[in-house]
């Protein structure tokens, strides 16, 4: 369902939770740490690493609600989301969302829904560390 991980996200194990023989389509999203930050309208800064801080108890609670809502809202068969926390380097996977469904459209919609809801509502915060030694808490990129 929804989980936080302090280690590398185990995509194979997560995908196993979503796969099933009645599903014709599977959509997944992977969010990676980029080599530059995302602040729109500002000068892009080279990012060395970042730190995701969470309130674990409430993050898991909100995350589970998002998955449950998605299963009700969309005609899908299974959905899973895992968010990495702690210290991450460029190229590391920060989030994985996977959805299986009989038909592709519901799978796409539900995957994007879970991702957007997670970014907006799950209590996780990103602190970026830049090449120039500075760091900065990132505002939501919704």
């Amino acid at each position, binding site marked *: 369902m929804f989980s936080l991980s302090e280690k590398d996200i185990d995509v194979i194990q997560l995908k196993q939770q979503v796969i099933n023989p009645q599903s014709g389509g599977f959509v997944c999203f992977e*969010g990676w740490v980029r080599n530059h930050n995302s602040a729109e309208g500002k000068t892009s800064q080279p990012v060395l690493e970042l730190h*995701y*801080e*969470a*309130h674990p*108890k*409430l993050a898991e609670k909100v995350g589970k609600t998002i998955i449950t809502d998605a299963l009700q809202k969309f005609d899908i068969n299974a959905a899973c989301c895992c*968010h990495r926390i702690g210290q991450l380097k460029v190229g590391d996977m*920060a*989030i994985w969302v996977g959805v299986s469904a009989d038909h592709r459209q519901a799978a796409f919609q539900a995957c994007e829904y879970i*991702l957007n809801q*997670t*970014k*907006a*509502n*799950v*209590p*996780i*915060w*990103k*602190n970026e560390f830049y090449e120039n030694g500075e760091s900065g*808490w*990132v*505002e*939501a*990129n919704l």
Partner: protein
Amino acid sequence: MKLSIEFYGRLKAQFSTKPLELNVAEPDKTDRNTIITIENIYLDLCQSYGCKSEIKIIKPILNDTFAEWNDPVKTNDVIGFFPPASGG
């Protein structure tokens, strides 16, 4: 009464990285108007730290559950403040 205050995300940079231990005067139990709410605590903190209040943006939590700004606090409560999430 003793309160513990926790800040998350960018609020750590604005207020305190570590939890604050506050000692707040007990409300007068004979007078309903002296109830102390999460909002009272927050606005006092904003004034102490010279921060703009963001009642509409920040979510308060009380003892690890989502709370309302006008929820009353009692001794030994842990109050947390969540800025908008920025995961993903």
